């Protein structure tokens, strides 16, 4: 009997989580060392790779893999977006402490806007990966 051609949804989700973690870590490192342009370029690359990989592979997922993905986007992506917005609101209400320390290097207004947009997207990607892995862990 030949093996199933369907993609293993669990490996797919764990691989996605590892890639997201590495990408976000590299970006945080570049931001820490005051390299905003490089960090934004890496963010754009990571998001492009993550989205293109997801769309390319999702057709090979079976119904369990798609159920995990649906759960992950709804609860992980949506939940991360809600939490990030809430955290941002609290941070701004507190007077945005340590902002100069967090934003090392010289940032143009366009780079700051891009950082905010990519930051939200990165949070959603991480939330997606975490929720997807948890979905599969609960069904081992």
């Amino acid at each position, binding site marked *: 009997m030949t*093996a*199933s051609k*369907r*993609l*293993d*949804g669990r490996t797919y989700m764990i691989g996605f989580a590892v890639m997201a973690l590495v990408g976000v870590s590299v970006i945080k490192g570049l931001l820490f060392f005051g390299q905003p342009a490089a960090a934004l370029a890496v963010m754009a690359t990571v998001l492009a790779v993550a989205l293109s990989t997801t769309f390319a592979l999702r057709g090979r997922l079976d*119904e*369990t*893999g798609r*159920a995990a993905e649906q759960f992950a986007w709804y609860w992980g992506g949506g939940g991360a977006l809600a939490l990030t917005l809430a955290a941002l609101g609290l941070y701004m209400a507190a007077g945005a402490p340590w902002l100069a320390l967090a934003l090392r290097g010289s940032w143009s207004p366009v780079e700051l806007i891009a950082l905010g947009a990519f930051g939200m997207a990165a949070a959603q990607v991480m939330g997606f990966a975490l929720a997807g892995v948890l979905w599969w862990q609960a069904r081992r």
Partner: protein
Amino acid sequence: MKNRLKVLRAERDWSQADLAARLDVSRQSVNAIETGKYDPSLPLAFRISALFGMPIEAIFEA
């Protein structure tokens, strides 16, 4: 949802990978269904039913 998938598979001496290939799903899906941690969709339940030549209610119970 409880089911007899593991027993039926064992009777035919199929591995989870064998059953997964016959149903066009991943092995992890077969495992999740067998352990009752995932309820298959109606189309998949019909495929399982057709594969084993048994009515759905003889394989799955609420």
